[in-house]
């Protein structure tokens, strides 16, 4: 009850804070600003209390609360109890709200020193009004008897069960989420989202106060920081998908992934356009527009992923949140879009005159090349938005609902990436305002020649195989070489924090080389690993040596680590794919984690797909009129002639298991035929083979019959065949896997990490510069 009250209190305080700050901003009264600040702190306090209460409820197994009951359980281990906090919609909104309020505190202290607190926080607090409204609408503290009142759950019913630990328990956390990635990936992503609020609020305050150039100075470190943190969140998601989810790749262009990428692409674009404005006072409107767009992209992505509109096209699953939340999310997005664009339009005439470029926009200037690069990044963002929204748009304009293949994004990003890499490099050869065209041409063509030479060599030695790879490699080399030149120059000059941009640009070059090699050289093969048997696939020898049980202290799961020996040139390494069964799905189907053998030049990725038992026999599923080869000896084919119910009809009365039969025909290559009928007893649940029929070198028995009631002709029978010449063996375990070579995957990770390190450098530098600048004012 207390917790539900506090959630409502949060909304009240958020509204109060917002009114206070707006009043202070309009009237420019310092005292009201101070009061509003206290209100804001009270808001942060109550959000923090809500978070603590939710955590407390999870830790103390308070299954009265629907949220705790839905995502936690008595069996859940301690680190994952924290993950249960944000595993559902309600909790993840609370996390987002909490992080936004923390960013709010930092923004207050930052904007206070700059004398723009009221204006900035007026906009900032609006975001919290919406977030707390969402919390009230999707209250994480609803009780079971409130949520499931319709189903007849009453408080008394729950109270009566409280002393029964078997029944008074939660549903538990999806085991797929129970690994360390879930501890860091979602909080990072939400931190990134929360941090995007600061540049937005600063931009809007700048628009309101007509400080069209100063806000850029104020917002720059926040833009850097948000880009950095959101970037970490995205790459962690990629790691997670690759290393434990076994998706086989790090990026699948899934709507959920795309919707975190778009805000990031837009802030990356913004990083470059703010640079131009700070240099030469240009792109004033673009910067406002981009900041608004980046923030609205966060809201749009929330709408896409949380409203259930993309339900059919994403592998991420979200429970439909209900119509009210759907509308609220739309209003949330619409409000900030209208607010942002509206204020921008109001100030538009003013902005045109503020845009005073001091330099000439020369075609060879760095400004110009930067703008081209930014346009390319924005184009990429637009394309991703188009593709992701396509299913909804198609439905809106009355077209057939459709999904977009990943191929679409890959095809269009190949030329875009090459152009981005080219501008990445050349813009750094160019200088601000104007470049000596001859020098630019000379340097560029020298690096271009280097790029073409290297990519030709790679093509010749068959590392890359097609034209677009060739172009991307060449441009990546250009970008890389130019940036490395700058990096060496700066390290020599001991200007470490100025390295940021060049590191990020070089990282993109390395990343691009990685994805190109990966795309051209990755190989995948299906392998059926039978215990003790060696399979030669992709030039490696794979042997399944056995399995070890893991986490034996946990009773809610049965988890095995399979030992797969991988041998090449006499050197043996082990990979450990994991298969487990969990109470979460009542052990109906196994969960899988890939085993990855990492080397410096690439990974061997072993993704389990299914389990089986091998007793030396082979199952053949037969349809009528479809003779099939016997895989043990393809000189023979087997055909299903008819189902034989004659004996079953005789035995109908007795109540005994029914003997069901299939008439089969064997065709040999020499055109001879043998007919026989196999029987198995069916007791209503399972089949028991009657006997084994020996024909030639084979033994046959009937495993089961699968009847198709509607269309008896498409019923099937599974017959097992065993060769009599092979000694009968102990049943052996079989792990069905998909094995892939991932050459140079490390370039992808290293490239992206270098990009992020560069962003970290730039962020630190941006904050340091500003703390130095404002130090005299605040003291």
């Amino acid at each position, binding site marked *: 009850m207390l917790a539900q009250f506090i959630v409502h209190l949060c909304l009240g305080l958020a509204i109060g804070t917002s009114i206070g700050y707006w009043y202070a901003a309009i009237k420019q009264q310092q005292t009201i600003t101070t009061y509003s600040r206290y209100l804001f702190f009270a808001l942060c306090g109550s959000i923090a209390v809500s978070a603590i209460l939710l955590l407390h409820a999870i830790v103390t197994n308070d299954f009265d609360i629907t949220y705790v009951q*839905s995502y936690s359980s008595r069996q859940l281990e301690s680190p994952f109890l924290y993950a249960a906090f944000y595993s*559902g919609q309600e909790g993840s909104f609370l996390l987002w709200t909490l992080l936004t309020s923390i960013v709010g505190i930092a923004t207050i202290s930052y904007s206070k020193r700059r004398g723009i607190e009221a204006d900035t926080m007026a906009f900032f607090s609006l975001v919290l009004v919406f977030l707390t409204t969402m919390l009230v609408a999707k209250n994480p503290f609803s009780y*079971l008897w409130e949520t*499931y009142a319709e*189903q*007849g*759950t009453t408080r008394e019913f729950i109270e009566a*069960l409280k002393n029964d630990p*078997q029944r*008074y328990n*939660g*549903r*538990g956390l*999806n085991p797929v989420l129970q690994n360390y990635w879930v501890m860091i990936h979602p909080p990072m992503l939400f931190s990134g989202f929360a941090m995007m609020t600061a540049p937005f609020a600063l931009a809007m305050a700048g628009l309101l106060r007509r400080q069209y150039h100063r806000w850029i100075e104020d917002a720059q470190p926040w833009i850097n920081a948000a880009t950095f943190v959101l970037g970490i969140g995205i790459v962690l998601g990629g790691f997670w998908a690759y290393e434990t989810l076994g998706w086989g790749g790090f990026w699948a262009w899934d709507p959920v992934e795309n919707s975190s990428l778009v805000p990031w692409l837009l802030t990356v674009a913004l990083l470059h356009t703010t640079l131009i404005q700070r240099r030469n006072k240009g792109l004033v409107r673009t910067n406002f527009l981009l900041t608004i767009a980046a923030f609205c992209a966060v809201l749009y992505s929330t709408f896409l992923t949380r409203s259930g509109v993309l339900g059919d096209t994403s*592998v991420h699953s979200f*429970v439909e949140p209900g119509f009210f939340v759907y509308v609220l999310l739309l209003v949330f997005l619409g409000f900030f879009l209208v607010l942002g664009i509206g204020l921008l339009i109001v100030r538009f005439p003013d902005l045109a005159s503020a845009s005073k470029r001091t330099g000439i*926009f020369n*075609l060879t200037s760095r400004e*110009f090349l930067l*703008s081209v690069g930014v*346009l390319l990044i924005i*184009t990429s963002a*637009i*394309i991703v938005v*188009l593709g992701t929204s*396509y299913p909804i748009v*198609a439905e809106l304009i009355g077209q*057939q*609902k*459709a*999904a*977009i*293949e990943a*191929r*679409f994004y890959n095809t*269009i990003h190949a030329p875009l990436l090459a152009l981005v890499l080219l501008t990445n490099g050349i813009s750094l050869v160019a200088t601000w305002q104007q470049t000596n065209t001859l020098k630019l041409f000379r340097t560029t063509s020298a690096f271009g020649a280097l790029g073409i030479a290297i990519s030709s060599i790679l093509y010749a030695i068959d590392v890359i195989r097609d034209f677009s790879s060739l172009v991307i490699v060449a441009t990546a080399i250009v970008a890389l070489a130019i940036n490395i030149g700058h990096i060496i120059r700066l390290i020599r000059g001991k200007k470490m924090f100025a390295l940021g941009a060049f590191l990020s640009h070089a990282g993109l070059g390395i990343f691009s080389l990685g994805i190109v090699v990966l795309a051209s050289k990755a190989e995948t093969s*299906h392998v*059926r690993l039978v215990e003790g048997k060696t399979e030669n696939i992709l030039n490696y020898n794979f042997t399944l040596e056995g399995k070890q049980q893991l986490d034996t202290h946990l009773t809610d799961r049965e988890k095995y680590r399979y030992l797969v020996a991988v041998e090449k040139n006499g050197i043996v390494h082990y990979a450990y794919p994991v298969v487990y069964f969990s*109470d*979460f*799905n*009542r052990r*109906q*189907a*196994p*969960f899988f984690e890939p085993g990855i053998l990492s080397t410096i030049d690439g990974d061997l990725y072993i993704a389990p*797909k*299914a389990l*089986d038992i091998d007793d030396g026999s082979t*199952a053949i*599923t037969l349809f009528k009129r479809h003779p099939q080869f016997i*895989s043990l000896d393809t000189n023979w084919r087997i055909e299903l002639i008819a189902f034989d119910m004659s004996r079953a009809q005789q035995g109908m009365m007795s109540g005994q298991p029914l003997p069901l039969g299939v008439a089969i025909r064997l065709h040999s290559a020499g055109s001879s035929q043998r007919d026989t009928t196999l029987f198995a007893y069916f007791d209503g649940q399972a089949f028991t083979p009657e006997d084994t029929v020996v024909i030639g070198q084979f033994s046959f028995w009937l495993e089961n019959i*699968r009847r*198709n009631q*509607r269309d008896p002709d*498409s019923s099937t029978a*599974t017959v097992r065949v065993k060769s009599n010449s092979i000694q009968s063996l102990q049943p052996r375990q*079989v792990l*069905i896997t*998909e094995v892939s070579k991932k050459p140079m995957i490390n370039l992808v990770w290293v490239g992206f990490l270098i990009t992020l390190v560069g962003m970290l450098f730039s962020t630190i530098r941006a904050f340091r510069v500003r703390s130095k600048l404002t130090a005299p004012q605040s003291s």
Partner: protein
Amino acid sequence: MKPRYLIGAILITAAVGTSVYLLSQSQIQYSTIATAKTSGRKVQIKGQWVDHDLTLYNTGTDTFQFILVDDSGEKIRVVYHGAKPNNFELAQTVVVRGRINGDYFEATEILTKCPSKYEGNTSLIPQKQ
């Protein structure tokens, strides 16, 4: 017109134009079994798998097949050359991409939509019905 606007406009128009063309090429329409049969195009069908007994995964040939019933209630056998998707048994809805091949649907991709939480695994909510 300033060259930067011109270049910008050309670039964006080209990119968006190309992407719209590619979108129309790479979209796979949702369809029913009936329309998939007549069109013969690559489509995706949303539905539910039925008949547990007819869900087969042949590990030797790596072929998976099951019976799909689409939203209009029509049934078809789906054959997929690959492993049975993880969590297939738990999927509430199944989306198959591919095309009709004779009397069955040859899937190139199977998407399973699993509930993010599993109903039923609790005795705290009385079962309706």
